[in-house]
């Protein structure tokens, strides 16, 4: 690789008090190169653009300045911190005739890996982590859209995941723009672009983001593509014109309830047929909406808030199949079968809160919004976590992760205090009184 910035060099940039030490190159793509840098003892990342990219995208510096001034919508973004233009004395150290520019951003922490590895099946991850990642994704773009911004290039390539927790990081935030303003830049990535953008009938914006978000969530949840069904089998060479037909001219959702033309092929598209039935109808309905009527009418696409709600509900009804141990997400009120082994699922025990219910399964959590409908859905700060006893996994408890103690009423009438950090055995529990309401255990 030809590195434009010399590793080891100390470079000064306009507007920065201290020089940056280029520590090591981290990677290079079609747009630019990323380096680890030392900024006065703090390790950060620096993206430096390739000259061809700068020449093509004249609005890039204005968009970056705007994004930097507005600040990150949430902690899910690796957001630009400062635009970097070399000072005259730094210019000769840059190994290209044009000085160029780049930007500074936080370094991606270890443990976050590219989302395409998940799509390619090269990753061990739980269904719960994938659903959490999708929820964080919807939350990130919810915040971004609330700020009046659009992202324009939602795709697998701009997303990193932490498999154990489902936490995410959205990178490449240099296309972010004020929705509707169109300071040039990217159109999107084929396969993720809304049909109206792919066909050149509209500029990318918040409503095309919603389409791309639905594609990305679908790809994460199913490891398959929403438009690759039988129609793909007719394509011999999958090139640009073919992708345009598949995603632009006549896209048909593989699970469209009304149009069966593009159903998955049992051999070629097995992933879709195995994974789609895992998810509850309420979640499937958002895809049917976004990829059905929403294909041609952007205002019909599922909104970020709807995704957040449906994904949070799906996580609340997660339980482990008593026959095979696999995670299942069926409606706790209705009879259901395990998607994996086909075994009949018994009616689960639930934590019933005033505004939500959580199936009893280790790993599930009681959230603030279950008690207070005005609280936003925020998985990062649960009130309580369902955990198995460390030495006897058959005993399930609820750990108090709230700041205040709970009062627990047991079946035998006994009353106990559960201080923060402690866990109460659910086998004995009847009701919990916490600051914001009462939770009843129902079996």
């Amino acid at each position, binding site marked *: 690789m030809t590195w434009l910035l010399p590793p080891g060099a100390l470079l000064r940039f306009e507007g920065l008090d201290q020089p940056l030490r280029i520590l090591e190159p981290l990677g290079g793509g*079609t747009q630019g190169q990323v380096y680890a840098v030392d900024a006065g003892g703090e390790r950060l990342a620096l993206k430096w653009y390739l*000259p061809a990219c700068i020449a093509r995208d004249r609005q890039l510096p204005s968009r970056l300045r705007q994004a930097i001034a507005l600040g990150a919508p949430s902690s899910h973004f690796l957001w630009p911190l400062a635009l970097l233009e070399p000072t005259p004395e730094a210019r000769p150290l840059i190994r290209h005739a044009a000085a160029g520019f780049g930007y500074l951003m936080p370094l991606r922490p270890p443990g976050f890996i590219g989302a*395409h590895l998940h799509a*390619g099946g090269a990753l061990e991850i739980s269904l719960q982590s994938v659903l959490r990642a999708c929820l964080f994704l919807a939350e990130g773009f919810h915040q971004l859209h609330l700020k009046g911004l659009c992202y324009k290039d939602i795709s697998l390539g701009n997303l990193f995941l932490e498999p154990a927790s489902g936490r995410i990081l959205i990178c490449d935030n240099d296309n972010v723009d004020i929705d509707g303003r169109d300071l040039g830049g990217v*159109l999107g990535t084929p396969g993720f672009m809304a049909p109206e953008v792919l066909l050149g009938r509209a*500029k990318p914006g918040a409503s095309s983001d919603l389409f791309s978000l639905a594609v990305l969530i679908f790809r994460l949840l199913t490891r398959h593509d929403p438009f690759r069904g039988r129609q793909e089998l007719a394509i*011999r060479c999958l090139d640009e014109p073919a992708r345009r037909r598949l995603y632009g001219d006549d896209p048909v959702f593989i699970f469209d309830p009304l149009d069966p033309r593009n159903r998955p092929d049992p051999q070629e598209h097995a*992933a879709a047929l195995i994974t789609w039935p895992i998810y509850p109808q309420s979640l499937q309905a958002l895809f049917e909406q976004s990829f059905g009527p929403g294909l041609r009418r952007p205002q019909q696409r599922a909104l970020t808030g709807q995704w957040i709600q449906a994904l949070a509900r799906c996580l609340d009804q997660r339980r482990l199949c008593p026959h095979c141990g696999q995670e299942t997400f069926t409606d706790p009120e209705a009879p259901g079968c395990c998607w994996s082994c086909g075994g009949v699922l018994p009616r689960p025990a639930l934590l019933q809160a005033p505004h939500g219910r959580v199936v009893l399964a280790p790993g599930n959590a009681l959230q603030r919004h279950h008690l207070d409908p005005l609280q936003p859905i925020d998985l990062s700060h649960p009130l309580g976590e369902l955990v198995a006893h460390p030495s006897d996994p058959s005993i399930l408890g609820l750990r108090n992760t709230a700041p205040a103690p709970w009062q627990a009423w047991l079946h035998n009438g006994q009353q106990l205090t559960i201080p923060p950090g402690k866990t109460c055995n659910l086998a004995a529990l009847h009701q919990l009184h916490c600051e914001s309401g009462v939770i009843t255990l129902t079996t």
Partner: protein
Amino acid sequence: MAFPNVRLSNRPLHFIYLCDCSGSMAAQGKMQALNQAIRQSLPGMAEVARENPEARVLVRAIRFADQAAWHLPEPTPVQQLQWQDLQAGGITAMGEALSLLAAALQSPPMEERALPPVLVLISDGQPTDDFEAGLALLMRQPWAQKAVRLAIALGHDADLEVLQQFIGPEPAGPGRSPRRPLQASTATTLAQYIRWASTAVVGAASMPASRLSDAATEPNLNIPLPDLPPTLLDPTDDVGPLVW
């Protein structure tokens, strides 16, 4: 308790080198430079293949000198590829190499469904056989028409005209373009171009990249090609002779 063991169905991406092994390649270490450039490019190519859920990257190679022959006949997953050195010696049977390639791009042996193949022709001289006939045979194959065809000219004696014919019509306007033969006059530029073809182009042919709104879209191109690697500023460039 894990995500089911499934993955997006993928398609084969055939990447085929056509390497000139004529006697002139022995001069100035060109043959060694090419062997090195290909060998050094493999980890990066494997990384692109690993990160790409939509493609199975399979590599083959043809060598041509007095005759053309398969140097690496089996479509080999890049992760398993061990590059055997090419040896120089003989004349330049480039036309025969294209005929050999044409046979490989027929269906069968080509799969019914695939990604556009990537064909990279590397030469330092003029064909000594019937290049036109070989090219005509090749271009009758639909997979060859759909393929991304690139050419690297080694040194100053390469026949740019035949390399351009292999690629297809020359783009309008002057300047470096992936639709023109890439001219590698040093081992470093050769390595850069081989790396670019085996990573950036493989990526573009298998998994679409972000599209810019004002990107100059070249018509009749079934795969938009990525930018060429930037030319590094060498302080000794363009200063005239260094010693005289």
